[in-house]
């Protein structure tokens, strides 16, 4: 019986992009449905009643929510193809730790950058730079956060690369100046088809954010 997969998503969502990369890595076919977050579909509200957010992966009618959880699910179900998580428990713990760090520190500061002005914006910029510098330190001289090969921790963070231009424009700074290794790493990841096909053009993201800023007065 063929698997039926539906992904409820939003083009510019860095969380949705994570799932798209995972599905591409495994060569899995699925139906993509774009959600209008101002007019959420009944299916989205039914499959994610708790958070009402994208992405949601519906596998043979059963919904899975929260991007990191979805990616681990995909990795466990399609375990024989292109493993994303390392096999060693300690390395797995590190991968989960850093993916969690990205969500807690990078996402939050990034979000504040395009939604605030003045002093609040400056504080958000400092927080983002601090978080990125910690990641730069963690990457070190490794080709990937996962080590020699692309893995879960790279997947979790690379989707934010689509948003770097937006952060830089809103806060008037250069990420490359602070974190040159991160930019080299990002370009290395972009050589991977699953990544280059799943990430959205940074200009598209920025245009979307400009539209939202205008609409909501940020």
């Amino acid at each position: 019986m063929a698997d039926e997969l539906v992904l409820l998503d939003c083009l510019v969502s860095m969380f949705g992009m994570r799932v798209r990369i995972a599905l591409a890595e495994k060569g899995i076919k699925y139906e993509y449905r774009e959600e209008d977050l101002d007019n959420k579909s009944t299916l989205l509200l039914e499959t994610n009643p708790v958070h009402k957010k994208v992405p949601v992966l519906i596998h043979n009618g059963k919904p899975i929510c929260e991007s990191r959880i979805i990616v681990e699910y995909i990795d466990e179900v399609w375990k024989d193809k292109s493993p994303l998580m390392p096999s060693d428990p300690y390395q797995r713990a590190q991968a989960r730790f850093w993916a969690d760090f990205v969500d807690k520190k990078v996402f939050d500061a990034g979000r504040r950058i395009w939604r605030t002005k003045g002093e609040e914006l400056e504080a958000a910029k400092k927080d983002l730079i601090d978080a990125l510098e910690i990641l730069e330190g963690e990457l070190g001289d490794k080709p990937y956060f996962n080590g020699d090969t692309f893995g879960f921790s790279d997947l979790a963070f690379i989707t934010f690369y689509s948003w770097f231009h937006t952060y830089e424009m809103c806060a008037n700074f250069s990420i490359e100046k602070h974190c040159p290794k991160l930019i080299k790493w990002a370009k290395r990841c972009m050589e991977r088809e699953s990544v280059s096909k799943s990430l959205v053009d940074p200009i598209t993201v920025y245009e979307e954010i400009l539209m939202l800023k205008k609409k909501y007065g940020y």
Partner: protein
Amino acid sequence: MAEVKVFGAWGSPFSKRVEMGLKLKGVEYEYIEEDLKNKSTLLLKYNPVHKKIPVLVHNGKPISESLVILEYIDEAWEGPNILPKDPYERAKARFWAKFIDEKCVPPMWKACWSIGEEREKAKEEASEALKFLENEINGQKFFGGDTIGLVDIAANFIGYWFPITEEIVGLELMTQDKYPNLSKWAYEYCNCSFVKENLPPNDKLVEIFKGIIQAQPASN
């Protein structure tokens, strides 16, 4: 021989989660109590990113963040499962554990220690979040089924710490009327021998919380 250390704080539910996980697997460990007002050099070395407890150190290698640690414990040692085996059930367990940490604990804690409008807002948020858990537990003995699992361990704050705090600060949030399933779960949870052995003493927690109240400015 494996060397296992836990850097924790006796009153912290996050710290206790890790100890519960290790005890479930029957793992022997050395416990190091941290003074959170004067963190040790060792803690800062093992968790330079967040500088927090709990930290598990296994053969010299540190792991931080209680939910990450619990998954590590489940994978590193044999014994009763902390997470289910089925991928879909695992995804559900992870979902609810994350939900507890992000949507339940913060407003519940805030509702205890704030006043006026801030308290009302936190109460409202916490009430809504707990409704989802109330529906989820729905007649089962534990979130993990017949035995304790990841979600039950993650919900230790809800089962033990919160009812104690609620009573001291005079907040009526998690009542039996509003949350019969959750209240039943909390009772089962706190009374099962495994959990009972691993909770900090009620009277010591009461002392700490009463101290916090006394240190607060006079409320209106």
